[in-house]
Structure formats: C-alpha cells, structure tokens
C-alpha cells in the first residue's frame, strides 16, 4: 500500500453503516470501490467495531484514539453520546489532527441531527454534510 493512500471514514449506527466516505488527497481521484484494497479497508474497519464496544467503557472521552492496527493501517474511533460510531482508517496520522477532525465532524453531525428531516440512526444522504466532511478531512488530515 502506497503512502499516498486515501482515508476511509465511516459513521456506523446501531445496525448499519450510515455514511461512508473515501477521502483522497486530490478531490478527483477516482474511488477504488472495486479493488481488493478497498474491500480490505472496509473489512478492517468493520471488524474493528467489536473493539469499539470494548473500548467504550475504558475512557470518559468520546474520542477513543487508535483502537485497532492491521499492517500499516490504523483505525481511530469516536463515539457520540447517542452511541453512533465514527471510524477512521488511516495510515498513521497524528492524534491531534484526528481528534480535531472527529470533533469537527461531530459538530456537523449534531447540526444534521437537528434537521427535522433527518431521523436518528438512518443513512445520511445530505450532500452538504458530505461536502463538509470531505473539506474538513482535507484540511486536517493531509
């Protein structure tokens, strides 16, 4: 896996993923939806879900830091008060940057959940949310 590899960001609700974003350094890099690398990324992130549950009660913070490491990839997690999980797969970024990223995304998520048209624990389809998440990821993580 090259060093210019993108990031994978997921929001997972109680039963299903609510939002997925592959984020690359350059905005127009084609997604790698079909490659085995992408499939492996998703696998790694989803298999770390159990570790989120384990880590939940070990910390008072919403930000749970790195909870899983596979090869050169790390999974960082953030848990909202409503038990919605934010997961980020990355090739070893700084703790502070990731923390800032999660906190900003959390703010967007709170705004989104105040939208009367958004029901709790349903897939996120808002384009505005998607745009904001990608922008903040690019600002903080590259």
């Amino acid at each position, binding site marked *: 896996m090259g060093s210019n590899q993108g990031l994978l960001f997921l929001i997972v609700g109680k039963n299903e993923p609510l939002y997925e974003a592959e984020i690359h350094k350059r905005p127009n890099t084609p997604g790698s939806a079909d490659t085995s690398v992408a499939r492996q990324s998703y696998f790694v992130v989803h298999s770390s879900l159990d570790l989120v549950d384990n880590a939940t009660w070990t910390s008072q913070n919403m930000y749970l830091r790195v909870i899983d490491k596979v090869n050169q990839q790390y999974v960082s997690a953030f848990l909202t008060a409503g038990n919605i999980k934010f997961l980020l797969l990355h090739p070893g970024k700084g703790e502070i940057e990731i923390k800032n990223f999660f906190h900003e995304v959390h703010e967007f998520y709170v*705004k*989104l959940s*105040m*939208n*009367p*048209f958004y029901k709790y624990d349903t897939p996120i*389809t*808002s384009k*505005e949310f998607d745009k904001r998440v990608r922008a903040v990821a690019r600002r903080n993580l590259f």
Partner: protein
Amino acid sequence: MSKSSAAANGQALWAKQPKANAELFALTYGALVMEVVGDADGNVKEINEQLENIGYSIGIRCVDEFLAKSDVAVCKSFEETSNVLGKTAFKMFLGANCDVHQHSAKSFSLIMHENPLTVFVELPDEYKETLQYTIVYCGVIRGALEMLNYKVDCTLVKSTLKGDDVDEIKVDLKSVMQDGAGDDYHEE
C-alpha cells in the same frame, strides 16, 4: 406612519415580548412540519395546504394580540398596512427584520434576510422543489389581513431552502371586504 417609526415601534414591541429560545422555536416548528409530512403520506400539495391552514389559524388570532399591544394608528392605505406588517408585526413576533418592497398599490413583497424557522433545516431532494417549508407565514399573513378586511393572495416567491439568497413573500390584494355581518347573517 413612516417607515422608520414603524421599525422603531417593532423594535420596542419585540423588546417587550416574552422570548422563546430560537433553537427550541425552530425545532418545534420542524417537529410540527414533520408531523404534517407524516400524516400526509407524501402528498406534498396536502402538506403545503395543511401548513398554510395552520398559519391562517394563527394569523386570525395573533392579529388581535398585535393590535392590542402595538398601539398603531389606523392605516390609511394598503401600502401603509404593508409597512406596519413587515416592519412592526414581523419584528414583534419573530424578532426578524423584514424589508418591504412595494410593487404597486395592491401588491408588495416582504424580504426576509434571516428566517427563524429555517435554522438547521435542509430539504431532502424529494421535497426540495415542491415543499414550501415556511408557507406558514403566508397563512399567518392571509389570516391576519383577512381580519382587517383585506382579502389577499400570499405566495412564497423565494426561499433560502431552495438556494435563493433571501426569503421573499409576495402579497397581492384581491379585494377589500365590506364591514358588517356576512351574507349568512339575517336578523330575525
């Protein structure tokens, strides 16, 4: 009443009004809209009508409150009424500043640069073009002016939720009703 004194009056009335938290207000209206949306089963026309009717019911009541508290002189023209509506009444009830644009003696537009109902709201694609989220204003204006013997048509022309930069509500005067009891009333 001149434009500036109408605005000053609105400011003073707003200061006296009991306040509700702006977010709570927006979320409450959001919950109301969602209730209507749920009941209408995806029929957007029905949603808009329902919301407009809710506004109408509010309008015919709150005009009394406005007249009781505002102490405005009797308006001599529709133009003057539009001014009091936009500058004083909207300020008093919503705390929002409104510009009034006169199109003609019988038609004007209210331009809202801030809209207390639409904080947090983002319309999903299926409703983006059709649902008039803030149509309740139209109902309120229609109801309130009807109590003042003005029959008006009220439409949302622009909405920030649809990508416009301001909210615009257009009011057209249809007719001025006669005072007195309606046709249904017959003295015994």
